[in-house]
């Protein structure tokens, strides 16, 4: 039994999987860089209305979000099925909007504090009364730049 005799067999050599981790790592790094973590879990249903005259909301560091809509099914037992406001991870009342905006504003860098935009992510079926109240609260703390976040599509889709 010599060491130098090659084993000869008719089998195909196995495909090397040694580079598989490298490929996967490459993908991994791509997604790590491209990821923006969702900072709050949605507790309200949030089917946004559609519009086509939209502007992009770049620069996530100067945006603060206010969600509103009917509570999701699993929260309906506790919170009822009337539309509610969600700030960060909690349900909130209209009066909490002002303090929330002030707290968020204070947590941002000095130079961003005057250029903040408030993005309203409101479910399409919400009544305007709630939104009017939110807007009044925002005016009280002079958070005047707002953005009605929408999906892109024809506005006629909203009517059915």
């Amino acid at each position, binding site marked *: 039994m010599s060491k130098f005799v090659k084993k000869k067999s008719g089998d195909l050599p196995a495909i090397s999987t040694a580079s598989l981790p490298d490929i996967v790592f490459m993908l991994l790094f791509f997604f790590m860089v491209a990821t923006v973590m969702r900072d709050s879990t949605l507790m309200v249903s949030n089917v946004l209305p559609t519009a086509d005259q939209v*502007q992009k909301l770049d620069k996530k560091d100067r945006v603060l979000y206010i969600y509103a809509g009917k509570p999701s099914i699993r929260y309906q037992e506790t919170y009822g099925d009337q539309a509610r406001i969600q700030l960060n991870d909690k349900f909130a009342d209209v009066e909490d909007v002002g303090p929330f905006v002030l707290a968020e504003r204070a947590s941002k860098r000095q130079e961003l504090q005057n250029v903040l935009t408030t*993005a309203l992510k409101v479910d*399409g079926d919400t009544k305007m009364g709630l939104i009017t109240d939110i807007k009044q609260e925002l005016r009280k703390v002079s958070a005047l730049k707002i953005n009605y976040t929408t999906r892109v599509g024809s*506005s006629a889709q*909203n009517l059915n």
Partner: protein
Amino acid sequence: MPRKVADVNAGSMADIAFLLLIFFLVTTTIETDSGINRKLPPMDQLDDPPEIKERNIFEVLVNKYNQLLVEENPTQLVDLRELAIEFLDNGAGEGEESCVYCQGAKDPSSSVNPERAVISLKNDRESSYKVYIAVQNELVAAYNDLRNREFLRIYPNLNMTYVEAQNQYDDPRFDVEIKDNLKPRLDSVKQMYPQKLSEAEPSKASRN
């Protein structure tokens, strides 16, 4: 003869990497949000609001059944943009109030000049947000259509519409030099059709 050190099995490396990969795949949101930008009026109101003539106001009402009333006529949403353009572009003014670039019908009962024309939007507390957004969208579209027209007329060599130019201006990836070039042009067109969209103060009586 030294004892052989056993190789660490690297076969599970791929599994670990996959696990991480799947985690990041799930948490990723690549798309950016978009929406209609608005500016709210400041809280401290003027003591005596400026007097606006009835003919310069374009009134849009949404009732609690989500029906539209435009200038006291029931209207469908699809017609709203056309009506708003007609109103804004009317330009019936004379002398100091005249509008040289307007192409409207110069109807004496409608607005004198786009700079004077105000669109007033009022909605019931029971009306739905979807309809509100649809109405906002159509009104913004009316302004954008007119601005596009003028932008193309005045700066034909740029080969883009007002909206495209505005998007380029807002895009952080574009050159500062291009933006500085665009800014005065955008502003001049903006000035021709200033967005005067006023929303009614919520009346105290209807709040509960």
